[in-house]
């Protein structure tokens, strides 16, 4: 992934992260939580040009859920509401025991993609999501067994070290997701993203998250550097200062920007080809 890809008009994968698992309607009244709400958001984002939807399951009261049963209900609803969008389940879960972290991988059918956190991160003042090497390995092994493409969540340069050390274990092309924001993520700046990309091994595909107000500039830069983009209410709840966003509007803006920059938004079929997915 290089500036050459931008010049060549390579399609851009737009991922919609619809709800996350940390925040809920207490922070954004229209953040989708129920399977029906998330499915409707997924359909709207697919229509707006997203080819991947990133899913977290919830309990009825909006609290986090990791069970296969809750993910099955969610993914069934999303499949019913959408046409061909690629479903990606989260395996993140601060404080959740390792066995629960595997459960989102065990739906029928399995998701085409799943997130894989590549190292520890801090939450609030007193929590840490450990994401030990052992857990990363066991989650990846189950993804291989179930033909699930991992999206490698690289929160910072330490996680990049962890990822590069085991890169040969991942099928071609490895797909990394770089996070820029506060806390344990990478300090958001154009120079930091440019440096990250410049030092990537050949053949790696990458996408970018910018948290909060960093979503628009960091994802736009990713397009220029040949990368892909992730947008949505999980990462950013405002369209602009003081104005609440919707998932659909964030996707529509990302699609408009990449197309105006000469890179069309990838269709689900093009995304499968770019990432080596075999479909379901």
């Amino acid at each position, binding site marked *: 992934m290089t500036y050459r890809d931008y010049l060549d008009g390579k399609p851009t994968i737009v991922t919609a992260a619809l709800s996350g698992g940390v925040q809920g309607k207490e922070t*954004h009244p229209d953040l989708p939580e129920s399977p029906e709400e998330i499915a409707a958001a997924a359909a709207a984002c697919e229509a707006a040009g997203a080819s991947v939807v990133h899913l977290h399951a919830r309990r009825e009261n909006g609290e986090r859920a990791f069970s296969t049963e809750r993910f099955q209900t969610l993914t069934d609803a999303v499949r019913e509401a959408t046409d061909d969008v690629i479903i990606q389940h989260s395996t993140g879960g601060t404080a959740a025991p390792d066995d629960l972290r595997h459960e989102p991988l065990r739906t029928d059918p399995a998701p085409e993609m799943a997130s894989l956190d590549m190292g520890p991160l801090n939450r609030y003042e007193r929590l840490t999501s450990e994401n030990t090497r052992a857990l990363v390995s066991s989650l990846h092994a189950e993804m291989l067994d179930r033909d699930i493409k991992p*999206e490698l969540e690289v*929160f910072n340069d330490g996680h990049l070290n962890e990822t590069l050390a085991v890169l040969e274990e991942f099928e071609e092309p490895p797909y990394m997701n770089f996070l820029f924001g506060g806390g344990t993520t990478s300090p958001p700046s154009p120079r930091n993203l440019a440096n990250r990309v410049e030092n990537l091994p050949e053949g790696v595909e990458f996408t970018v998250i910018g948290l909060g107000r960093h979503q628009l500039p960091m994802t736009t830069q990713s397009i220029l550097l040949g990368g892909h983009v992730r947008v949505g209410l999980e990462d950013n709840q405002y369209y602009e200062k003081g104005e609440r966003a919707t998932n659909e509007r964030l996707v529509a803006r990302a699609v408009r920007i990449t197309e105006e920059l000469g890179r069309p938004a990838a269709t689900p079929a093009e995304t499968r080809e770019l990432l080596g997915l075999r479909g379901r």
Partner: protein
Amino acid sequence: MTEECPHLTYRTEGDDRSFDVARAFCTVTDSFVQPMRADVCNARYGLDPERDCEFYVAPERTDGGTVDPANGADDPTETDAAGGDEDR
């Protein structure tokens, strides 16, 4: 402590908002609780409200003192109020 937080309630209304399904509400911060924090409030997954929540106030204190500033906080929101969900 491994029991649910004594400051946890479930409400459909509060903090100038209302919901169809009762949600976790913190009586210390007087606000609805984010989903991940609710796992701390409920002492799920081995979490301990007294140890793992920065808003927790010892429920049995009788000295009439104020909240320890190291334990209490005014702002229950996340650091990045514009949305910064870091569990992928």
